[in-house]
């Protein structure tokens, strides 16, 4: 990181609301200024070097990082790269390091993290540019490696007939584990994943735990051992629990990883 440049919004008038932002035109300025320090680097551009760039803008009421970054792109710097899709905290696209911790930017209110906000892309994942990383590819790779899909009964099931019943409590528990949005926060927060690129990460273990709980998945613990019974798998986890603490969907990662570890360790002499 070398240079630091500062870009300021014209201070005479409140910056116009970005079109992408949902707040009505103009927003309601709160008078406070915030400074967004963003990591800039475009690997596609020869000669581009990672550096911090500072943008100064006026805070509006209810301003989220989605609104702030959209405004920066529309009024200050059209080249800034970042990813938002649902802007409602449900799709997992917008995870980034906010003041050093991974979180969903779209549901972060600037007033909670400002007035100086440092933004960086998630580590571990391949960098696309600035704040944008390729979590999608990583997640697909993990899914393939862990065969993270339901391995149903190979016997044909007739979908015209009444579905298999399931206890309502179990369905609720499954849903609890199914809520992962593959945002990558847990991986970025994990010291183990930082040191060891092949580590499955909490998201991978949570997926296995999810299918293991599901009676519709016909795999046995021996099968799961094949997938996570390694030092890159559940035995590689050093129980740092940052994953648990940052997961924006509050998945019970601590409990699930411990559970999986017990089951898999049980296979050691079985």
């Amino acid at each position, binding site marked *: 990181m070398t240079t630091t440049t500062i870009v300021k919004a014209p201070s005479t008038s409140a910056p116009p609301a970005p079109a992408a932002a949902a707040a*009505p035109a103009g927003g309601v300025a709160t008078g406070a200024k915030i400074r967004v320090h963003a990591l800039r680097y475009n690997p*596609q551009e020869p000669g581009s070097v990672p550096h911090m760039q500072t943008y100064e803008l006026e805070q509006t009421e209810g301003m989220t990082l989605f609104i702030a970054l959209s405004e920066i792109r529309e009024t200050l710097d059209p080249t800034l790269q970042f990813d938002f899709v649902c802007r409602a905290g449900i*799709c997992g696209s917008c995870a980034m390091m906010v003041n050093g911790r991974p979180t969903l930017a779209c549901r972060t209110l600037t007033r909670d993290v400002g007035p100086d906000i440092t933004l960086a892309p998630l580590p571990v994942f391949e960098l696309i540019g600035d704040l944008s990383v390729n979590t999608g590819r990583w997640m697909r790779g993990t899914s393939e490696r862990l065969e993270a899909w*339901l391995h149903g009964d190979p016997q044909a099931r007739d979908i015209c*007939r009444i579905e298999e019943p399931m206890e309502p409590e179990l369905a609720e528990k499954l849903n609890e584990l199914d809520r992962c949005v593959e945002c990558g926060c847990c991986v970025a927060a994990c010291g183990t994943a930082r040191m060891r690129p092949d580590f499955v990460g909490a998201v991978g273990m949570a997926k296995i735990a999810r299918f293991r709980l599901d009676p519709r998945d016909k795999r046995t613990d021996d099968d799961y051992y094949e997938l996570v019974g390694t030092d890159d798998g559940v035995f590689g986890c050093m129980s740092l629990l940052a994953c648990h603490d940052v997961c924006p969907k509050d998945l019970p990662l601590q409990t699930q990883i411990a559970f999986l570890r017990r089951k898999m360790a049980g296979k050691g002499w079985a």
Partner: protein
Amino acid sequence: MKVVYTDVLVIGGGLAGLRLAIAARRRGHDALILSLVPPKRSHSKAAQGGMQASLGNVIKGQGDNEDVHFEDTVRGSDWGADQEVVRMFVNTAPKAVRELAAWGVPWSRVRKGDRQVVINGQKVTITERDEAHGLVAQRDFGGTKKWRTCYVSDCTGHAMLQAVGDQAIAAAIPVHERTEALALIHDGGRCYGAVVRDLVTGTLSAYLAKATAITTGGAGRLYRVTTNAVICEGIGHAIALETGVAALGNMEAVQFHPTGIFPAGILVTEGCRGDGGLLKDADGHRFMPDYEPEKKELASRDVVSRRMEEHIAKGKGVKSRFGDHLWLDITLLGEQHIRHNLREVYEICHYFMGVDPVKDMIPVRPAQHYTMGGVRTKPSGESPTLKGLFSAGEAACWDMHGFNRLGGNSVAETVVAGMIVGEYVADFCDRAENDVNIPTGVVREFLEREQAKLDRLAQGGGSEDAAKLKARMQEIMTAKVGIFRRGKDLEEAVDELQELLVRSRSIGLRSRAPGPNPELVTAYRTQKMLRLALTVAYGALTRTESRGAHFREDHPRRDDAQWLKRTLATWKSDADTLPTLDYEPLDIRRMELPPGWRGYGAKDYTDHPDTAARQAEVDALKEKHADRFARQRALMPYDHLLPQRLKGRNERIDERFPAAPGGAGDTPESAFAWESE
């Protein structure tokens, strides 16, 4: 020239695209999915409330079946829907839920015995049947006679997308993430694939396929206030329109959702009202019963949205610095219910507004929500005018929603359409005459043309700012092509949008950064979106009646005599500033349910001359057949339209199949077998 070949090119990795690709893959064809974002981040993710399918497991859904679902959907559509397609849909929806159950969706389940629910503001105890215990549960949703909406807490779309996405990975279907289709490659009669931009490197390549499917979802971002994701910009619609051959159907039919949180536009689910939430005004008064004594908060979306705006216009809105809004009150549902069954809603209120919905009311106002219009197709999902082009999901108009779609019918549609159209796509690819054999010249020409367009934007030295044009367009659409439409506003809108379209031809860029270049993306998308916006606005201006979500203050009646027809828009030439509109009549004489009153909303319409005769015919046939299947067959046969493996009745608690002799389960009516690989 980089060229990628496959059998089925699926543009869009939402529920519709994924399910379609899986269907084709299982029939042995290679499928490749393009998506702007990783598929599991598609906007299908956002569906909270649920998916309609007439399982009839819960007690309040008892007696539900395809017929009831059919009627609800057609009434909801204000008779704009293609009734054959609706029939195909309602018969496949239960199969889709059951297939998804087998794929791992953790559907919320029925618990036998008593439970307390809130109906119509009152706490009521209902008793679920023992034999329903553990089966997929249904909740109440707007515009339905029975409780029919299957759900996964309030993250139904998420759970569905997760399961279908996983199955696509299991089927080893490649997804080219962060790619964008910029144009369809075609020769005026046959579609061959698409020109695709890699959003990481910025390079263009050609993807060639026997069949190309547009499953790109909605176009909500034509509006400023919308519940849609930022990627729902209608580019899939636009590239179909730009062929000049394929048509877009009913683009003026735009749905507004009653409860977008104010002012952010993020959706809180209809499930809130389904579960018993109430709408209140500035005085804390529950006003919906004043307008809709029967269905109250649960009338169809178009009706509720309009009533809300009407109420605000009467000065009953809550004043705020951002404008007026109303309240959604779910406090009466209790903490347990809100924090478990409406958890997503709880989180949204908590994170985006600092509001605790357990104690406080939620500020809401209608926001753009759903694009009923789309790429016009036959019931098979194929464009009638451009061979080899298919479409499914929100992007398509095979027309099961007409002028208003019911909540919960949309995610159901995505999967059902994926199943049905996927089979048709596979059939199409099976036929030898559909092998692609296209001159490389055509491919090169399309690639070069698209590259030239991008170069012109980047280097043409234009002076217009794309972001500003886009913002203005969204402003116009929200203000003048919104819930209440007037001829004069629409004219102004069309004029100014045309002006913007012309200006968009001289957009210039401030930066030439290689790679994704977000500014360039905004630039070319704005050009496409303006065409789409014009298609919506012009269609709305021309349609001088009110139907479903399309409401003209100056023409408040539904006019079946003049307007029982579908708008078809094509964009003939690059130089045009308006689409060419054609109309496709709907044939009442073949309708199973002839037009009438919807059962809610204004009782105000002009009958078509054929309606009475058909109604008499229908009544006579109903008289004649006691068996509901025979009756249906007599009224409007549709079975021939369903792919072989999706034919067959649906079993219910009250409609048990006879026990199969070997126990293995197949009755003659249910020939379909679900395969795991």
